[in-house]
């Protein structure tokens, strides 16, 4: 486990942010991929199991928040679903269906640098 700090200047929330061009849903990530959460929530789109706002808050409450580092640790046998994800310093299991509401970009080495920086201080 590591308690990685998030860049303090990171935009928060879906309203006032620019989503990087390479952002894609966590549901499409494969085992071993590392990324950073850039947006949580479906931005108005509907979800087949939950009210989108409810889903967004549940994901936030369990640690999927903008700026969090995510890494796909394990995948289920059938349809590679559900997935086990390392979110910052904890592990969370979820179905790909719910992971659709989490947009991630490739983990930036710059942020890794920030982690190292913080460890030293």
């Amino acid at each position, binding site marked *: 486990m590591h*308690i990685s700090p998030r860049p303090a200047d990171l935009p928060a929330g879906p309203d006032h942010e620019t989503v990087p061009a390479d952002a894609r849903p966590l549901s499409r990530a494969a085992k071993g991929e590392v990324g950073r959460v850039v947006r949580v929530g479906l931005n108005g789109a509907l979800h087949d199991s939950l009210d989108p706002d409810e889903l967004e808050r549940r994901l936030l409450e369990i640690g999927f*928040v903008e700026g969090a580092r995510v890494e796909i640790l394990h995948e289920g046998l059938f349809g590679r679903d*559900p997935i086990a994800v390392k979110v910052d310093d904890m592990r969370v*299991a*979820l179905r790909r269906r719910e992971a659709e509401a989490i947009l991630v970009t490739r983990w930036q080495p710059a942020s890794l640098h920030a982690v190292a920086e913080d460890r030293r201080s």
Partner: protein
Amino acid sequence: MNAVTPVLQTGAPRMALVGNPNCGKTALFNALTGSRQKVANYAGVTVERKEGSFTTPEGRRVQVLDLPGTYSLRARSPDEEVTRDVVLGRFKGEAEPDLLVCVADATNLRLVLRLVLELKQVGRPLLLALNMFDIAKHRGIEIDVDRLAAELGVPVVPTVAVRKAGTVDLLKHIDAQVVDLALAAAQGVSQGANTWHEPSAEEVRATHREADRIIKLAVRPPTKPDTWTTRLDAVLLNPVAGLLILLTVLFFMFQAVFTWAQPAMDGIKAGFDALAAWVNGAMPDGILRSLITDGIIAGVGSIVVFLPQIVILFTFIILLEDFGYMPRAAFLMDKIMGGAGLHGRAFIPLLSSFACAIPGIMATRVIDNRRDRLATIMVAPLMTCSARIPVYTLIISAFVPDRPVAGVFALQGLVMFGLYAAGILSALLVAFVMRRLVWRGTVEPFLMELPAYKVPDAKNVVMSVWTRAKAFLQRAGTTILSIMILIWFLSSFPGAPEGATEPAIDYSIAGMIGHWLQPLVAPIGFNWQMTVALIPGMAAREVAVAALGTVYAVGGGEENVTALMDTLGHSWSLATALSFLAWYIFAPQCASTLAVVRRETNSLKWPVIMFVYMLTLAYLASLATYHVAASLGWA
């Protein structure tokens, strides 16, 4: 809520434990209360309520309530609603807590600090217990407790729930807080206002940022990461190896419940039989003796006999839970169980139901979501429990010829296998129908934390198993016992008249009901003797074997099973026998199961639904079986 602290004047101060799942809340509760704890249900909901009490070093008595784990006061499930309502003092019949103790896993602070920030808004006295401080230290996580307390504005105490000295500081703080509370109450000082409201997504983000800020100031990341969990997960969550290991674990558990419990169960049964025999010898024949031996002793015996299975099953479950394996098992099984509309965690209760539906239904507690849990409870009795085996064996040996099929399989074995398979398939089918048709459009998300692995603490495990066993005896016992006495009454009154030629049961109310129901069961090929035998069979499925012996006047006793086989072979047609087997797959032939469902769901509605749907399925299955068999010329 500007009320003066309510309970201090009237009784012991009440403290509520709140925290994320897996933070060691239950361990802390056990450490504080020892054996002075009670498990029950909250009024009107299927949520477990754990309460206990302890005495502080300064001799104050404090009541503790262990609330269901949660990430937010914004409730998402009935369990979390209980937590929210109790914390906010809204729960009917629950006094408001005087002190909130938020329990945190010190190795995993981010989410719980967010919860603390929410709890602060409630305006009640609040204390943060940094539990698992030993593990945090071991991993080299440095927590500046004073800084944390200053930033949060809440007193912070490190605790180690599994060590004797681990709660000393917490108790000191509670003493101090209780003095403050008493002073405040004496001076009529009102508490802080409750400003909590359901946070929006933006507010959740804001509290996350605040929690992050505080972590940066007060927590130094670990020097030694938790490599054990990573290494174990590489095997245990491996798609293939993980599933194989899970199946092995489950197989082992099933074996244990099935076979290890047997000697103890035989012992208990022999003990009760001996007791009944002693009473029979010591008392004159009569109603009272019959009530004591056939009603009460047999009734209590039929409950206590499940205790070994329940203890073994819960020992396994609690070990797996404390080790941190349960969420992993759910992860591995989710897709498979999901096909039938069940939750990944439903696997363990359903497997246990092969031994007996009672521990299986009690084990559904591992499923958090209410609907998933109810669906599992409703189908658990369809799994072939061990009490059906004597009935299946009797009918199969009497009617199915002992000959090989395709050279390798025994026909009798194949029929037995078919009965098990029919049970499993129908359970999956019923679950599917319930989740897809009755509760449509409510697919609960699968979203759970995978906690770090931990070595279970022996004392804590023993205490938790004991709590379960006690709850079973107390809660199921009272209901089951009264049903047993009722069944005894139905089968014994009125007694046989002078010079009766038929067995006494024929003249009893049960006998009358049997005759009376006869026209109803004629279409499925049952005769009145079978119907009569099914009534005492409600006490426990296997009792039907003895009851058949009684109605056919073959006399009781295990030795006479062969004689009974002969009698049945002559008086039933093959179609009737097959119809009886089909009946036994589905019929709600077990009053204890219904009683446990009533207890576990805390409502009369679910056992009634279970009874009706199982009875309908049983009737339809027997009807179809009988007519198909009859058309094949087996009538």
